[in-house]
């Protein structure tokens, strides 16, 4: 079947299998491999992208369901001049990534969280990232990064 959506503001129209998951559409059909797959039970959030501005787990959405929608992936976050989005910049400054595999999903989840809540407390960040698993960082610096990006003060 045919699906048509924008991905990072670019129109993508492709013929896909009915059963294709959005994450595979993004990675294999569109060719944007920044979004990663970390599990098969919708538990880890590595595949998180924005669908019409809201965070979703793209492994649990069919490409068909995203027809007509606007998808934003990690590749679409930085500014056109190459400078990083504030959330990306905060992750860099606070050492919020190590192997980088969970990072695109974590960053997109954080972008959505901040968009909805504005300035966050530590408890709100930790609750808000309940659906994103990381194995390297222990979350400590991720939380600092998101707090900072949301406009909250960060302590060591």
């Amino acid at each position, binding site marked *: *079947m045919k699906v048509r959506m924008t991905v990072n503001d670019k129109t993508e129209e492709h013929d896909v*299998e*009915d*059963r294709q*998951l959005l994450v595979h559409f993004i990675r294999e059909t569109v060719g944007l491999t920044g979004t990663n*797959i970390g599990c*098969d*039970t*919708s*538990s880890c*959030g590595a595949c*998180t992208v924005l*669908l019409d501005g*809201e*965070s*979703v*787990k793209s*492994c*649990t*959405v*069919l490409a*068909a*369901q995203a027809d007509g929608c606007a998808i934003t992936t990690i590749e679409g976050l930085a500014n056109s001049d190459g400078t990083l989005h504030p959330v990306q910049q905060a992750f860099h400054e606070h050492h919020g990534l190590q192997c980088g595999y969970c990072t695109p999903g974590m960053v997109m*989840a954080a972008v*959505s*969280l901040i968009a*909805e809540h504005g300035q966050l407390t530590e408890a709100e960040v930790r*609750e*808000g990232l*309940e*659906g*994103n698993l990381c194995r390297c960082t222990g979350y400590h610096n991720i939380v600092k990064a998101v707090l900072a990006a949301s406009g909250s003060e960060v302590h060591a």
Partner: protein
Amino acid sequence: MIPAAFEYRRVSSAEEAVATLTELGDDAKLLAGGHSLLPLMKLRLASPSVLVDVGRVRDLSYVRDGGDHVAIGALTRHHDVEHNPLLAAEVPLLPHVASLVGDPQVRHRGTIGGSIAHGDPASDLPAAVLALGATIVAQGPGGPRDIPASDFFRGFLETALAPDELLTEIQVPKMHGAAWSYQKFNRRAQDWAIVGVAAVGAPAGGGIALVNMATTPVRAAAVERAVAGGSSASDAAKFASEGLEPPTDLNATPEFRRHLATVLVRRALEEIAADHP
């Protein structure tokens, strides 16, 4: 990770959904948010040959004042239930429970109708609507019908919905300021409840429903009777698992579930009493 092949169909109205279900019979499953069905399909635990996507039926996403109740369209997402001001004012238990379903990404896609139609005893919203004494509205080839929540959950993942029926609306009675409590006990915040308790105070019917204590969401009827009879929270809570066969799984034995139910029911009743001494 990759579901078995199926045919995808999109419908744009409840009528079209019903007609399609009638045409296809058992081979078809409805797809709303997909967060109950797609995970099963990715592990190949479910392999319907046709998915009927009702996700675009926009006029089934609403929250309306129905006088003595609030009417929620089946396709209203958990996120929208969580943030709806009318529900916050009139049925505050529900937005709170919706805020605890899954994680933010799940809440952006999952729908209240999808969750209730799936009828997982470990889900939060089915127990909540059971405690609230809600009415489920279903639409079939013969037209709409009302099903009380107490009649809706029939067996494990089995509801009163006929194969050719679509759940269209949930009518939750207004709580009129009654106290309420939702106790969700789990290991990790994103997990299903090991045991959960949804409770509303007497002015809102005094319903107490349990999560993951049986093959369906269930009312703790013996507790309700004890409360109505004037028992204290801890005395009433002793009846929490009466008549129930709680499941066993990786997280808890039936014995531990019984214990948790007693503790959580007591805490729910105490929270309600504290609100309205």
